[in-house]
């Protein structure tokens, strides 16, 4: 993950609650074995009509909103499927951050792990930013100081929560797997002890499949 301490961007509102990952990245874009091509699938049904032509009424298709790289979204953004393709697609499209009053859990982990910043604010503050963007008729300039957990628009300033771990991940760009592997001896020791207490879970996948094949 790349280091990030500041995000300067332009935010626009998507006033839809419970915006699920099926809508962020529909099924027909999940058939790859790599991460490529997901930019095309982002918000597909909102961006394109059934014949594949851009829908002029959707803000991301409008010239005035071409600079949008921060989304101000409805609550429970990213609910539903665990597909990380939703996060990869948002990043490939150019999104750097999403602001909402709540995020679905798996989406939250996926996004923060990939460096797509999720800013959780109380509902009234989210509404204030949405209103500011709507009044402007164009994306509103936003500055996010990740180090200070501080977000600023021309009219508003708020602070947002961030766990110590995610803070460190953004500021230092951690290789999470690499870090965990430094604890491999501890993991091995734990596993041996765990399996001595619960031998019926050791090698459970292999043993079950071997039994079924007999």
């Amino acid at each position, binding site marked *: 993950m790349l280091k990030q301490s500041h995000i300067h961007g332009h935010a626009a509102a998507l*006033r839809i*609650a*419970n915006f*699920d990952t*099926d809508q962020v990245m*529909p*099924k027909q874009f999940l*058939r*790859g*074995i*790599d*991460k490529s091509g997901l930019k095309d699938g982002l918000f597909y*049904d909102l961006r394109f009509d*059934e014949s594949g032509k851009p829908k002029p009424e959707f803000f991301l298709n409008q010239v005035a909103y071409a600079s949008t790289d921060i989304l101000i979204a*409805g*609550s*429970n953004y990213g*609910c539903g*499927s*665990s*597909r*990380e393709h939703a*996060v990869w697609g948002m990043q490939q499209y150019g999104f750097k951050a999403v602001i909402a009053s709540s*995020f*679905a*859990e*798996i989406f939250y*982990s*996926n996004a923060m*792990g990939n460096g797509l910043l999720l800013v959780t604010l109380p*509902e009234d503050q989210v509404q204030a930013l949405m209103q500011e963007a709507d009044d402007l008729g164009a994306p509103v300039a936003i500055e996010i100081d990740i180090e200070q957990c501080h977000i600023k628009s021309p009219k508003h300033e708020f602070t947002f929560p961030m*766990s*110590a*771990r995610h803070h460190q991940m953004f500021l230092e760009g951690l290789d*999470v*797997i*690499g870090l*965990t*592997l430094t*604890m*491999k001896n*501890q*993991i091995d020791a*734990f*596993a041996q002890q*765990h399996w001595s*207490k*619960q031998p*019926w*879970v*050791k*090698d*459970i*996948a*292999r*043993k*079950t*499949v071997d*039994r*079924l094949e007999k």
Partner: protein
Amino acid sequence: MMSKKTLYQKLVDAHTVAVLDEENVLLFCDLHLMNEYTSPQAFSGLEEKSRGVLVPGQNVSVVSHIIPTHNETPRRIADPASLLQATNLKKNCTKHNIPLFDTNDALQGIEHVVSPEHGMIRPGMVVICGDSHTTTYGALGVLGFGIGTSEVEHVLATQTLVYRMAKNMRITINGILPRGTTSKDLILNIISQISAKGAIGYVVEFCGSAVTALSTEARFTICNMAVEAGARGALIAPDSTAVEYILARAPDITGDMQEDALQYWATLHTDIDAQFDQEYLFDANDMAPFVTWGTSPDQAIAINAHIPSKASIQNSADRLSLEQALRYTKLIDGQTLEGTPIQHVFIGSCTNGRIEDLRDVIATIGDRRVASGVRAMVVPGSGAVKAQAESEGIADKLIAAGFEWRKPGCSMCLAMNDDVLVSGTRCASTTNRNFEGRQGRGAITHLMSPAMAAAAAVTGMITDARKLGGESHA
């Protein structure tokens, strides 16, 4: 004095390799399930860094999401990209010595149906999968939850996860479900009341007399859909029902090991006086068949109730959600759902694709046939479910009644294979998500129980299954 713990805390403690900070632990994972579409980039990530799979025998893969369900042998994946996902999964599993239920394996199916039915899910385990419905396993006292592909890679490399601990919620359901209502109706009702975000941040323990009375399969349905309320996990303390289910499927647990296991599983319950951060109380006696009317699983009502009127909703964001949903589902606020014509029925999925669900369908339809103009598909959750249904005569009855009897897979729950609805089709579905476009762009999904979907199939409209006189399990 020992501090009082919830079942959730006990499961986390028993799998904590190390405490990383105030919020996170390094959590050991007993079983990691994979499918063909959320794992490829994880395996590629391992290769890029020349990393291996730490404990292959605690991992298993199933071809489930992209597989076509046409009734042909051998099964053939016609779409080249999907075929590549399946062959790539096999290549990765072979390379890393990970067991696989492949496309033409007789036991292939949906990962969440296949793994418990063969005894791979046992009380006290931590089970994860790159699929949000991994919460299903909570029904056996297992901490199960979905993860993204980056975390799939982390588990493959380390058999652990960096795990942010959740808060504790308890949902107690007293009373007993009335005849003609099922655990699907119960969970749809609960989600409609606590909302699609009501359990964000929580692991939910379900308890109470209504839950205790349920079969293990019916409990799977509840825990499966807890994620639709935002829950990070769902739990039901293992009791004699759960233990019976497991021992019938785990011939390796015998003798002294069985005694040890039973002794350990008996400790897997919330201590009296343990603290929950949030509690809800429901009464099962009030339950009726539930059906969704909108585009979020929490937009659901009892079959005899009315869709909320716009005027009754004070919160402007909620009113907007209602308007957006009804525009998509082509319904009117204040109306009832009973009598709404449907063109398609889908019976299957990790929510309701098990043998008891199919028995419910048969009990509901009696001697009736699928209504004219309706296409009704039944997709068993696994090869084992399919074989069982065929041996019980269920398949023959369904076929005689005009249902399509298909091969197992995720199918039209998410329409990643070729089982896709065309725009405007209204579908009575036993699945878990009624999102816009989920079953096909412009298609309208009404979530309901297998009995209710069966009633819709034979009447051609959304119907109160209780009026058909059949009898469904709880």
